[in-house]
């Protein structure tokens, strides 16, 4: 045993004060540790991670139909009108731009070269309610993918007719349905 520890061991009255403090600390943490390092002690309700009201591991699928605009006749989420699709496309075109047209490379004194992307090459988080009310969230970085997500004509967002065809098959990348 170390010299100091022997000394401390002899000074029992001082030690009692130390032990009281230690005991408080130990009690606080041991209680927490006992109960929570390994939770599920019977009858104990421990703080848990926020209850997930959505998915546990696979899906963006959850429903909240109350505010959804629906077609009065069919009761379904209606497809976008041409005007709405065009408006959506106009907004997307500005956001999803991987063109390098007009971007300037600047050479610096140390030999490095930079390029201000002018807001291009951004990744865009998008979301929508599907026909069955499922909320789908995704991230797109090109016009074809953006058009496919919103199920609008790729040409509306400036995709050349001859470019790789964008599927309009709904959400092949989507992970989740709830029925």
């Amino acid at each position, binding site marked *: 045993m*170390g010299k*100091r*520890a022997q000394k*401390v*061991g002899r000074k029992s009255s001082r030690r009692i004060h*130390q*032990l009281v*403090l*230690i005991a408080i*600390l130990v009690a606080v*943490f041991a209680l927490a*540790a*006992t109960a929570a390092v*390994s*939770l*599920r002690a019977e009858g104990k309700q421990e*703080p848990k*991670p*926020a*209850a*997930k*009201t959505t*998915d*546990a591991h*696979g899906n963006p*699928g*959850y429903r909240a139909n109350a505010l959804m*605009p629906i077609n009065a006749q069919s009761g379904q989420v209606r497809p976008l009108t041409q005007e709405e699709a065009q408006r*959506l496309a106009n907004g997307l075109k500005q*956001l999803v731009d*991987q063109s*390098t047209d007009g971007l300037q490379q600047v050479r610096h004194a*140390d030999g490095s*070269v930079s*390029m201000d992307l002018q*807001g291009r*090459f*951004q*990744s865009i*988080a*998008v*979301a*929508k*309610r599907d026909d069955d009310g*499922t909320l789908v*969230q*995704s*991230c*797109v*970085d*090109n016009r074809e*993918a953006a058009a*496919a997500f919103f199920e609008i004509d790729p040409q509306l967002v400036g995709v050349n007719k001859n470019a*790789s*065809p*964008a*599927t309009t098959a709904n959400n092949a*990348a989507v992970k*989740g349905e*709830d029925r």
Partner: protein
Amino acid sequence: MRNIILARLSLTLLTALFVCSLSSSAFGAATIVIQNADAAGIGFNDTTPVAPVGGNPGTTLGQQRLNAFQFAANIWGATLNTTTPITVRATWEPLTCDATSAVLGSAGAASIWRDFSGATFNGTWYSAALANALTGVDLQTGTQEINARFNINLGKTGCGESFPFYLGFDTNHGSGTDLVTVLIHELSHGLGFQTFTSASSGTWNSGFPSIYDRFLFDNTTGKTWAQASMTDAERQASATGVNKLAWNGSRVTSDLQSILATPQLKVNSPAGIAGNYSVGTAGFGAPLSSPGVTANVAQASPADGCSALTNGAAMSGKIALIDRGACTFVVKVKNAQNAGAVGVVIVNNTSGVVQMGGSDSTITISALSISDTDGLTIKSQLGAPVNATLLVNTAAPSGVDTSGRALLFSPSSFQSGSSVSHWDTTAFPNQLMEPNINGDLTHSVVPVWDLTWSLFQDIGWRGNKLGDSQFFVRQHYLDFLNRFPDASGLAFWNNQIVECGIDQPCIELRQINVSAAFFLSIEFQETGYLVYRFYKSAYGNIPGAPVPVRFGEFLPDTQQIGQGVVVGVGNWQAQLEANKQAFALAFVTRSRFTNAFPTSSNPAAFVDALFARSGVTPSASERNAAIAEFGSATNTADTAARARALRLVAENSQLKSLEFNKAFVLMQYFGYLRRNPNDPPEPGLDFAGFNFWLGKLNQFNGNFVNAEMVKAFIVSGEFRQRFGQ
């Protein structure tokens, strides 16, 4: 007086010496600044009063938005290592949307750089944040590295009305959109999880590849996107070639082994249909596990499971087979659970499997889906017992190519989320950087949960996994309790840190307290600390050392006593008692012990020697109790009695108190540094450091916070270097 001053000066210098020898970095490794670029009263400056939500303490809408941004930024700030602050220029703007669809926001690098000092490859574009980190200076002061724009109207009438942003930190977003998760995802793109080459045309940006392209590997042509021999057409083709495009970075390829797995339905019998079946997973209920849930399969009645099952007796303890359709998945699974089923297999009504969404926090069993044809196969055998297992196969990573490389999302034609800057959607469990921002994502960005940090390391980022609070907690389970964390325990301790939100002093204090809690836990006190006391009782301190046990002895013994013990789970007390008895018996039969304590000595001498070595003066009753273990014997040949007597001494309450601080300090070295106090790289290769910290702990009456002992160890370079740079 002079002596007092000198003594204080000496103590100060000593403190500095030992703190310096342990510390080389603080908790946070990078500063990410959210630059509020909104006009007065708008976006971040919106003064609309709101109630604090999910750990976000802001009381105005603008403040909550800013807090959420900073919280997301801090997750990366705690993990990345760069001396150059990263500025995110952020605004809230009206972005395109309608009632049921919306752009949530966007983010990305503000500028790109090549051929700078420190670049790992010349002629290669890097995002500004990574370029600054690699070169060590701000290449362009006064400008942001990342741009971020988010939709100010989301949740308002006519703009994604039913999925407003959730601004809490706790992922409890309900039917809303978890802003923090979206931000972490999009900021990750801005930090470097993106190519600047056009996936649509395959054309490099201005004639140069991106650092990301150096790891984009077409497993058909055998070329990376950065190779000049790869044509634009080949790049374009690989961007739309199913399972063609993989990440060949070594860190990702290595780390995915501990992250990705394959969910499976394994039919065990009858032999005719035995084997593994492809499945879809459920976004609710208990996560799949390994070795999983095994039971016989029973067809639910009604077959669609949409109402209370009428064959409850047949369902109890079984895996319920239920047809898809007519109601939601959660209704079916809940009905099966109510009938006593231990798992559910949903049979699809079309080919292929379905990923099952929905939520019900009361569902506690696991569920999978299988294809209609596989369902028919199983149903055809239900005349006799069909035994199956719902599991996750950790030996078979999902979302990888045949060479074990992580796949990027490259469907045959551009789809929603198509981007070579995302992982493939077949990855399981869901990854942060898949194209779909899935509702089950946590805020962890490092292994063993997520591959984002691994990819960042491949492209050149340096940092430390310890910055991720969930990883920090998990490592304590491994280092102190020698086991993997139970899910609820991990969540509890992680939440102790996460609930500090963006309050950095709170985070630092909680990290210290959480860390110390593992030493103070009953589970450790009854395993690791008991091993310490066995050695102390049997042998006293190691000659010339202030401690009784070395790390090489301590670790296997602690693992032995702790085997199968999870305090609070099952009959852990019985398991612990059995382990203690077995350990004590094995301990006294070791040659070191039998040499130290010949069986010819009488019981009283044996017991007195143990107490003497422990440093405890026993009461008469304590001494007599230990001696009585030998009954009327006049020698100590009875091995079981030797074990019991030794254990009585080791579990003596005086000994526990006497050695508590010393054991606490020793476990700092064993737990965090995985070495003895006098092992390299300890300066002097002696116990000066150990004695210093013991002195401080004693000086502060065992208050480890005021003594700054735990803090010194968890911020020490030696500890942190175990997990990064």
